[in-house]
């Protein structure tokens, strides 16, 4: 689980081109959207693609994403439970 969280942080930085942020700067419970990392609607869609591509999880309802992408902690938990690869 700890490894997964670190892995996710790295992927978020890379996939979403968060140039000036390092893995160490993202806390497990930092909000990803809004005031936290300041991600926007396109980033949310990009995370949905990442779930599908890297973990074999398909979200059909983008609203579901909002809950899952609250923080790295919640994301990791969801992935652990639902991953197919």
């Amino acid at each position, binding site marked *: 689980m700890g490894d997964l969280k670190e892995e996710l942080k790295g992927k978020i930085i890379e996939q979403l081109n968060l140039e000036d942020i390092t893995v160490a700067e993202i806390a497990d419970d930092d909000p990803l959207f809004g005031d936290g990392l300041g991600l*926007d*609607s*396109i980033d949310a*869609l990009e995370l*949905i*693609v990442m779930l599908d591509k890297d973990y074999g999880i398909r979200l059909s309802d*983008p609203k579901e994403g909002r809950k899952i992408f609250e923080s790295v902690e919640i994301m990791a938990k969801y992935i652990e439970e639902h991953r197919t690869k």
Partner: protein
Amino acid sequence: MTKIYVSHNNIVSCLGLDSETVVNAVRDELSGLGLVEDAALLPVPFYASVLDREKLTVAFHNLNPKKNYTRLERMMILSLDEVVKASKLPLNDRVGLVIATTKGNIDALEGASPFPRERAYLAQLGMVLKDFFGFQNEAIVLSNACVSGILAISVAKRYIRRGVYDHVFVVGGDLVTKFILSGFNSFQALSTMPCKPYDEGRSGINIGEAAASVLVTSSKENLAEQSVEVLGEGTCNDANHISGPSRSGEGLYRSVHSAMQEARIDVKDIDFISAHGTATVFNDEMEAIAFNRLGLGRTPLNSLKGYFGHTLGASGLLETVIGMHSLHQNTLFRSLGYETRGTSQPLNVIHRTTPRELNVFLKTASGFGGCNTSAVFKRVKDWNKERR
């Protein structure tokens, strides 16, 4: 100041290959949207309005083409050909050509395309059309997302006002492709049902393909009977987000304001709005906010996406042509797919196709990149006298 008219016109779409046929279908409330199950286009089934290949091939063959043309080129040539012929204008150096498209021959990038990949360059599309008809001036290709079709009329008007041209032919077109479908699907923007603009159950867009053409001219000679005068137009960016519509509808609000100011008309003079209405949750809500800020919440309004889907770079032009016919027939066309209000602010969405005396309509469009374009058109009442 020189008056500018939009005159001869054509629509090539799944509802027909000329304006009359297409407008009749709209009047009869026929939708061109259908279920497509083609994994080569999209892994899941989707609704779209797609042109019948056979019909297009037969109609295009009648023009005796000497070379090979892509599907989009055939649609655009077929559409423009009717308008060029109806105009009876010699294509001299006072005649311009504006092409509106978002993606042009983007299917030329696909491995299976029989055309070279260079065909995807939009200037090539311009040259193909220029050469087919023998225009003397280089084509002006406009690629400004989903406002391209209506903005192209602005561009034509501005060129005429500037004194560069007397007449400008405008053609807009885009295709239903794997490229476009995969992209909008990744945006979770495609509806799995026929789209429902402004309805509470709306869940996204359908893509459509079409080409539309008009003549924009400063001459009153030989005007088409559906001709309208361009009273005003304007474009404005939201300066907010590259894909998400502005929450306050700022850009749309300002673009309508700019068009109305130039037109010197009041909201009460607008008989109906031919709006963008893509049927995404956020776009339609944004429009409702902007129209209410403008005092246009009670003005009859339609979106034609329920008939054609979203035809991207063609949509603004296609919908303007339908609007012209709407004025000419004194008929408000139903906004197909709408049942129950689904926006926080009220809109007077046209429930059923209704006869009504009409003079002026407002056309709007909004697109990715935060762009919004509006134009106000007024029917040329005594076109018979004006044409003299």
